[in-house]
């Protein structure tokens, strides 16, 4: 390296790093928070070992996928209140279709279920576009309808899936400290999201969420962008439902309901702006793991685990209040 290179390098990269930090506070804050929470957990429960890590990863998997589903739609400027019910539908579909089949059969059924998720997302997107009903109302209603569909497919919890299929997420394969669930999460999210976010499509989605009018005037097909966001959300929700099958081993028609709200909690805590255009997938995924830690920690602390919901709700409220407060402080200038 020449002398010039050495002299110019540090300030330039420092400026870039500072800017990165300023623009993506969640990407730094979230992992830090998670590490802090993990440390706290280990302090409280020194027996925390690889088995506990596997349970944590498995428990967090459906929530992380629900968070991804919600994140995509919110970034595009919308909202999807049907994530939970869609997960239920995918869960009962898996539980009923895979129960007597083979591992390969289960994989094939999974593909079908993902397709169903994509179609559901397409339906949401088309309804929002054609009916001109606001997306809150559309997704609230389609969620309600999907709840009925789930009950139709399976009235009571039951069904199952081949052990080999369940093992895709349960246990470990490579190292006892790297749960399969984590590998599954990274692979699946990467496969769906990376091609999108690096392509022009990702740019369109962020643009549409940030300022729909400006994007439209710049020549963006904003309807298309929002439609695609809903389709991706449907796919992630379907994945979340399959993950529920892997976590519980069965299908249950009401299994996914809670994930609409929890998924929203995860993305809010994970740094996705509810007004659209800002945030990513990594923050929400880490937030999902964080949120999944709470029930475990409560048990370790001998606190009634039912406080978990209270804490989750309180967390959302505090985070959004802090966000709102910060925003209005800035605006006052």
């Amino acid at each position, binding site marked *: 390296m020449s002398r010039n290179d050495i002299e110019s390098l540090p300030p330039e990269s420092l400026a870039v790093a500072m800017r990165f930090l300023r*623009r993506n506070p969640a990407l730094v804050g979230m992992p830090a928070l998670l590490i802090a929470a993990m440390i706290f957990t280990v302090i409280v429960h020194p027996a925390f070992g690889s088995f506990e890590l596997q349970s944590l990863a498995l428990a967090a998997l459906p929530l992380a996928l629900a968070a991804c589903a919600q994140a995509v739609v919110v970034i595009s400027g919308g909202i999807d209140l049907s994530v939970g019910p869609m997960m239920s539908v995918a869960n009962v579909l898996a539980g009923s279709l895979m129960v007597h089949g083979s591992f390969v059969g289960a994989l094939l059924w999974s593909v079908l279920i993902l397709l169903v998720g994509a179609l559901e997302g397409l339906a949401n997107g088309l309804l929002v576009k054609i009916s001109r009903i606001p997306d809150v109302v559309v997704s609230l209603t389609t969620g309600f309808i999907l709840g009925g569909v789930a009950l139709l497919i399976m009235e009571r919890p039951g069904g199952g899936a081949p052990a080999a299929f369940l093992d895709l997420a349960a246990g470990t394969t490579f190292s006892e400290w790297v749960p399969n669930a984590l590998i599954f999460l990274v692979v699946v999210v990467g496969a769906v999201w990376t091609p999108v976010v690096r392509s022009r499509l990702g740019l369109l989605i962020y643009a549409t969420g*940030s*300022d729909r*009018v*400006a994007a439209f005037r710049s020549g963006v097909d904003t309807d298309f962008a929002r439609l695609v966001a809903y389709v991706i959300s449907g796919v992630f929700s379907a994945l979340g439902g399959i993950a529920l099958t892997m976590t519980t081993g069965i299908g249950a028609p009401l299994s996914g309901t809670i994930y609409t709200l929890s998924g929203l909690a995860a993305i809010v805590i994970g740094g996705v702006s509810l007004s659209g255009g800002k945030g990513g997938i990594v923050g929400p995924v880490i937030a999902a793991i964080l949120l999944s830690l709470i029930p475990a920690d409560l048990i370790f602390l001998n606190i009634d685990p039912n406080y978990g919901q209270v804490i989750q709700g309180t967390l959302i409220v505090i985070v959004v209040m802090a966000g709102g407060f910060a925003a209005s402080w800035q605006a006052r200038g």
Partner: protein
Amino acid sequence: MADTGVVLSVHDIAKGFGSVQALSAAQLDIRSGEVHALMGANGAGKSTLVKILTGVYSADGGTVILNGQPRVFHSPAEARGAGIVSVYQDPALVPDLTVAQNMRLARVALPDVRGWLDELGISQLDDRALVRELPYTTLRLIDFARALASNPVILLLDEITAALPADLAEQVFKIVRAWREVGKSVIFISHRMAEVSSLCDRATVLRDGKTVGVVEMAAKGSDERIVSLMLGAEIAKRTAAAVTRSLRSTANSEGPAALEVKNLHYGHALNGVSFMLRRGEVLGVSALEGQGQQELFDCIAGVRRYDKGSIAADGKDLKPRHPADAIRAGVVLIPANRLEALLPQRSIAENAALAGFGRLASWGPIAMADERSRVANAVRRLQIDTRAEAEVKRLSGGNQQKVVIARWLASGFKTLLCFDPTRGIDIGTKQQIYALVRELASAGNAVLLFSSEMPEIALACDRAIVLYAGRVVHEMLAADANEASLLRAAHGLPPSGGALQ
């Protein structure tokens, strides 16, 4: 001028929204190598025509022929693809993306944009900067450069100089003229006649959704012809008389102080502003972009809280923490962006009555008869056109502005703060507002008027102060407030008596 073939030909365009027919017979012919003005009062159909040309709306009837081919655009992307690109007042840039990403969005090469930005005087642009982090004027120019870089056949500039400082506006004009020289076409929309006269070759005038004439700008009297075409001959005569009448009225320069501002400080924007506004006078405020005028008005009106100094309204100390405090002291604000001040889906009556509900005591049953009469009086006095829809958002810009003023007439006030009240308003309504402002002053109120158009200061005001870098740098009588001296003072120079060149 390059060859004069017709590039764009628009025939009999019609477009309706519900029961309102925005356009019924719009015609437009644009030649290559010309800068063509599109003129018309608010509500004449200009922006609807623009939106049809740029693919935001589709016409109900008529034809658009571009380069000999009949075209229909279903989206801005299609129109851009065909070579029609427009630049609006609000930059079409996505705030949470970087400049580079915004260029990719419009499929425009960044180096080309940089080239144009160089010509506009911006040589250092960090393309990784978020649009949100850049100043407004820079964004306007980036938007303009991006449009130029997509090499359009027809460039549509919609009020491009609004809120642009004079030197940047000049740069824009230079480029527009150069564009014309190489045979490109520009459609230019502006309410500033001076710009239209100096820049454009021809002007098409719209009125009531129809094209009523095409004027050669080079010909004598083209300005007056455009105005009379826009207004219809009758109104033009009437408003000319109104202006001369208003200029003749005398101001009371010895009245008590309605507003006394001493050493006002606010952040970096205001650095010790002091002036006095007397009862019975119209005091003009003139300044270039960003000299603190917005902050000054906001601080007096209670929209922002000033840091240091004092404001006295009619002798009483005023330190408003909320507009309600200022309103209680009789100081009311008419903001530049009337959409900020109006309830779009509510009626004229509800909008005009809004100021009566500031206090908790007003939450009970409404005294309907009293409200009705107060609102009716205000509407009548301002000659608000109530024929239009019940929703205020369907009114023309001029009428909308009148509704805002009606609100304060209906609830009463002592001191009126007008921030650029005639921005984007047609000439006829402008004259009415000048006359009204003078009338209010004569009746014992006090008016503080900021205008971004310097000629207005002399027309409407008794005295004028000039703001520069957050301070009042000069005070003059309206008679002396010609554009030259205002411009010099606004640049921080001592205004001389002679002409500027």
